[in-house]
């Protein structure tokens, strides 16, 4: 048995691999260009090659690893030295990879992964094959003897069981239950109020641009005297057509959008021409987000997004279900984050937050109005109207953004809302918070306010503009 407690380097061939690694060769490209343009090809390439060789050898000399049964050690770096320590409990996978060059020399590349989205946490490019296999088996042994039961919090039975006992036979498929199925009418509505509208407008602009390329001067179109009624007609016909196209695009793309659940797998499928499928594991769900679109908020319709953590080095995944009513959102949430329903009534932000929002809106409005007034002096008086509008809109937006703020905690799940026009409510279980930070800018501190940032494996969620003391309590609650 190979004793991995003794710190060791990777195979000397690792240094050679490093010198000819794709990264380094790519770095040599600009050097090659310099070499060719300066005319001293051999000299420059020799120097660059020597530097690359020295860097590769030094990098290899500095890279030392060991495994003591509890912690995996890796020290590396020539200038900036990094000493990484990975507790064996955190290891999700140990993977060996043997490409042709490895097979030729009896080597293996080792990838060790922990949770989180950043891929391999430790990578050794050239390790003698027996050492690599010893590392893998000793890590698995350590995990087995630690005998940590794969409890509910860890949420990746696959990764763990595969790591410990080899592949498990797949369980019999659980019956699939349809939670939501969107009729075409609702997809049309989603398209008319969604990002498709902007996309269609953008392609219209693009089409006009293409016309100009064909020799049709867009100004020429404008110069043709259409007459007032023709313009009105164009608007009356063109705008509905524009929105209809956007809606139809959504209907085709999201055709038969169905959210269903089977076992712990939430699946969303849709598409007429291109069928798409998105899956999250309910046991790994990190957070959910309810986004209320500006126009549809009065009708109680909102989009639901459910995100899960990365599993085994893959990207974090998410599913989106548009235009659900409150009952449908609760139905899905009850399956993916049971503690989140019934959703609590949110507490408004403190009065100081309103004053802050109004000041922010007011200052923004003043800045906009000032620059618009300058524009008015320089060009047309009509900009003054725009300046007046900005002066009214700024504080109004401030007030709306204050009203958008809200937070509540129920059954260890935090609900945090923000947004002036479109509102987003993030739903975060305390058990998923990795770390938390109370952040207070100078302006917030002057009003006794702060925000809390909840760091999740999927991304970060903010609880904005609460009283400083309350923020402290939230941060303490989520990190214990």
């Amino acid at each position: 048995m190979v004793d991995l407690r003794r710190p060791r380097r990777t195979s000397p061939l690792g240094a050679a691999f490093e010198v000819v690694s794709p990264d380094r060769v790519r770095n040599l490209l600009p050097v090659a260009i310099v070499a060719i343009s300066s005319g001293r090809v051999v000299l420059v390439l020799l120097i660059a090659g020597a530097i690359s060789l020295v860097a590769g050898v030094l990098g290899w000399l500095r890279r030392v690893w060991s495994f003591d049964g509890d912690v995996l050690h890796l020290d590396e770096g020539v200038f900036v030295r990094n000493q990484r320590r990975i507790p064996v409990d955190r290891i999700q996978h140990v993977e060996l990879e043997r490409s042709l060059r490895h097979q030729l020399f009896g080597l293996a590349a080792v990838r060790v992964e922990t949770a989180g989205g950043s891929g391999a946490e430790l990578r050794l490019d050239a390790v003698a094959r027996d050492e690599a296999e010893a590392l893998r088996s000793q890590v698995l042994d350590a995990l087995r003897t630690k005998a940590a039961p794969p409890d509910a919090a860890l949420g990746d039975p696959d990764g763990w069981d595969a790591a410990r006992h080899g592949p498990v036979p797949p369980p019999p498929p659980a019956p699939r239950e349809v939670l939501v199925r969107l009729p075409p009418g609702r997809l049309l509505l989603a398209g008319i109020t969604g990002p498709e509208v902007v996309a269609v407008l953008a392609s219209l602009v693009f089409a006009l641009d293409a016309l100009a390329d064909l020799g049709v001067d867009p100004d020429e179109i404008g110069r043709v005297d259409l007459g007032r009624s023709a313009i009105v007609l164009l608007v009356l016909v063109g705008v509905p057509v524009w929105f209809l196209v956007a809606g139809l695009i959504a209907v085709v793309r999201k055709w038969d959008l169905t959210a269903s659940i089977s076992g712990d797998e939430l699946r969303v499928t849709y598409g007429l021409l291109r069928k798409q499928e998105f899956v999250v594991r309910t046991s790994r769900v990190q957070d959910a987000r309810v986004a209320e679109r500006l126009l549809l908020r009065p009708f109680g319709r909102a989009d639901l997004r459910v995100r899960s953590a990365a599993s085994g080095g893959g990207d974090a995944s998410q599913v989106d279900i548009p235009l659900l009513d409150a009952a449908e959102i609760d139905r899905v949430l009850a399956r993916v984050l049971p503690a989140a329903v019934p959703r609590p009534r949110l507490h408004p932000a403190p009065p100081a937050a309103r004053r802050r929002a109004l000041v922010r809106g007011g200052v923004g409005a003043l800045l906009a109005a000032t620059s618009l007034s300058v524009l008015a002096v320089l060009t047309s008086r009509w900009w003054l109207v725009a300046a007046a509008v900005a002066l009214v809109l700024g504080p109004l937006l401030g007030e709306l953004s204050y009203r958008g703020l809200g937070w509540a905690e129920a059954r260890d799940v935090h609900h945090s809302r923000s947004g002036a026009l479109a509102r987003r409510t993030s739903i975060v279980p305390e058990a998923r918070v990795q770390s938390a930070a109370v952040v207070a800018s100078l302006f917030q501190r002057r009003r006794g306010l702060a925000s809390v940032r909840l760091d999740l494996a999927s991304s970060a969620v903010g609880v904005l503009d609460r009283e400083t003391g309350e923020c402290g309590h939230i941060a303490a609650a989520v990190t214990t």
Partner: protein
Amino acid sequence: MTEPGADAQADRGDHGDPAEELVPLERRVLSLWRLRAAIGLAVWVALVLAAGVGVGRVLVGSTTALVLAVVGGLVVRWWTSLVWRAWQFRVGDGALHLRHGVLTRRESTIPYHRVQHIDLEAGPLERRMGLTSLILRTASASSDSTVPGIDAAEAEALRARILALVGTGDAV
């Protein structure tokens, strides 16, 4: 533990209970930050000087460079000491607590049971000064969990202590 700096501790006890045991960074970090800033400033001064020579106005160039060096030096000195005073941390029983930031104050809490792995990182300047950065990596990319500039020997002891506390499970 690092020894508490008297001036930084004095006026920070007003933020509730965790504040009591917060300790400042090593005083040496201040020198490190100033040295780094000075190197950056020196590059700018050299550029201004070179530009002055380049356009044939050596006097204007060197005067600007002098002003830049003096004003920049004073600003760097003042700002780095503000940053240093604002920086405090505590290696608690269950979590690492950080408090830092001059204009925007941040108070971060990183529970050990969320830690995926731990890095100690030191560049050439840091090594010369016997300092190192302690970084707790969690599954979240946005975690604010770097303690810059702890005494190198101290950092290894802290790491061992935290590693013993990280617990089991995959922590996501």
